[in-house]
């Protein structure tokens, strides 16, 4: 399969948040400020990329040869959890401000279904290593892009005269729905 098609498909056409509806928790929780959204996107990008490559390697070189494929899910979850601990450790040391601003959402990357979903997709779609890398990169760039766009819209919404009943989460969900419709328009891109 063409790498360009895999990348564009993962990033825009089959966007993990707006089309597959995975990773909604950080999408709504950490999208009030664009700097936080970018930080979260960067952390998730790192975790998705490394977790997918590791998942591919574990599945191809350990689980399949020893015929223990049934351990796929638990193996992936533990690898993702270890990666998140590592990311948390690095942020504590090198980016304390980002660590503070991400707060509880940082350890919650472990339970971010986008990460496990990408690792599982890589296996079910039977990608090779290069395709896995391109796919996971596309997914994570798509995730970060949508997080950033949504956060900038929410910042504008804070200044907008929204009626009381729609203020806060309702208007955020309506915005997300309109964004999802807009991303459907990219269907003919690949």
């Amino acid at each position, binding site marked *: 399969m063409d790498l360009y098609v895999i990348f564009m498909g993962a990033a825009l056409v089959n966007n993990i948040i707006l089309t597959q509806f995975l990773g909604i928790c950080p999408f709504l929780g950490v999208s*009030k*400020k*664009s*700097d*936080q959204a970018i930080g979260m996107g960067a952390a998730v990008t790192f975790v998705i990329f490394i977790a997918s490559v590791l998942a591919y390697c574990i599945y191809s070189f*350990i689980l399949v040869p*020893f*015929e*223990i494929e049934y*351990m796929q899910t*638990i*193996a992936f979850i*533990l*690898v993702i*959890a*270890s990666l998140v*601990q*590592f990311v*948390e*450790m690095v942020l*504590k*040391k090198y980016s*304390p*401000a980002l*660590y*503070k*601003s991400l707060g509880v959402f940082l350890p919650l990357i472990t339970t971010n279904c986008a990460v496990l979903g990408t690792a599982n997709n890589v296996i079910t779609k039977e990608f090779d290593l290069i395709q896995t890398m391109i796919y996971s990169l596309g997914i994570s760039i798509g995730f970060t892009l949508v997080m950033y766009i949504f956060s*900038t819209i929410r*910042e504008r919404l*804070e*200044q907008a005269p929204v009626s009381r009943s729609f203020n806060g989460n309702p208007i955020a969900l309506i915005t997300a729905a309109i964004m999802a419709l807009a991303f459907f328009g990219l269907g003919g891109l690949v």
Partner: protein
Amino acid sequence: MKFLIAFGFILLIVVLFITTYVLNNRTEKPDIDIDIEGCGGCHNINCGHHPTHLTNKEAK
């Protein structure tokens, strides 16, 4: 034999997780207070410290 391999594999990943967890817990949490008032400010509305992002309680 397959059971032993599966058990050993899971044990390995669990040890990996416990190691990273312990290392993470031992890493000191940053103790920073961002001084919003002291920020000279670029007045960029995208900045998280821009006054418009403060809640009513914080503003008081």
